[in-house]
């Protein structure tokens, strides 16, 4: 099913994409699907490595379902501290 979702890119992903966020319409079930569909944007090969994802400001897993109207935040590997 085609869903309208907002995707936000952070740090290296944002620099690779050249944009902070975008609205996309695509046929996806999970957060992992979003990551893979937008691989040309964020440039990272591996959704399940050290990258993380949040949906509507809540940390999520790559197999968490994405719904119509959701905002998906794509986080490259973090490096706090």
């Amino acid at each position, binding site marked *: 099913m085609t869903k309208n979702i907002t995707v936000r890119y952070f740090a290296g992903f944002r620099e690779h994409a050249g944009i902070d966020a975008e609205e996309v319409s695509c046929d996806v079930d999970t957060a992992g699907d979003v990551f893979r569909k937008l691989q040309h944007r964020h440039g*990272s090969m591996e959704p399940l490595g050290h990258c993380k994802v949040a949906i509507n400001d809540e940390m999520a897993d790559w197999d968490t379902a994405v719904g119509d109207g959701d905002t998906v935040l794509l986080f490259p590997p973090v490096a706090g501290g």
Partner: protein
Amino acid sequence: MRITAELIQPESLRGELRDDRAGAYVGFEGWIRDHNEGQEVLRLEYEVYEPVAVVEGDKIIAEAMSRYPLLHAECVHRSGLLEIGECAVWVGVTSAHRDEAFAACRYIIDQVKIRLPIWKKEHYVAGHSGWVNCERCATHGREHPQAIRS
């Protein structure tokens, strides 16, 4: 959990944890080093996605409080541009005895480093800059076995 663009003031943060029942205080500070993996660092830039960082940081502190018999625990992380020697992150813990203060302080900083949506970009003396860890994942994902877990 607090995110701040201002200088971190460990002395005043430590003061907020004062408690007559406390026998032990352990404080951790992460300082900006002048080098990393062989490169001379000029300054460092932290990008923080605050809405999630604060919620996740509070979750980490709550986990520490439930694992160890603590009195108080707090963590503050900087955002923005930092110079060499500046404090990037502070963790403070108080408890009756020192065992749990050491263990909890260590737990909090370890989790903060791997769970909060915070990224650092190092600006090198040699002129270039790079996202720490991030660049490796984005451009060399296949070369890093730990990034290819299924």
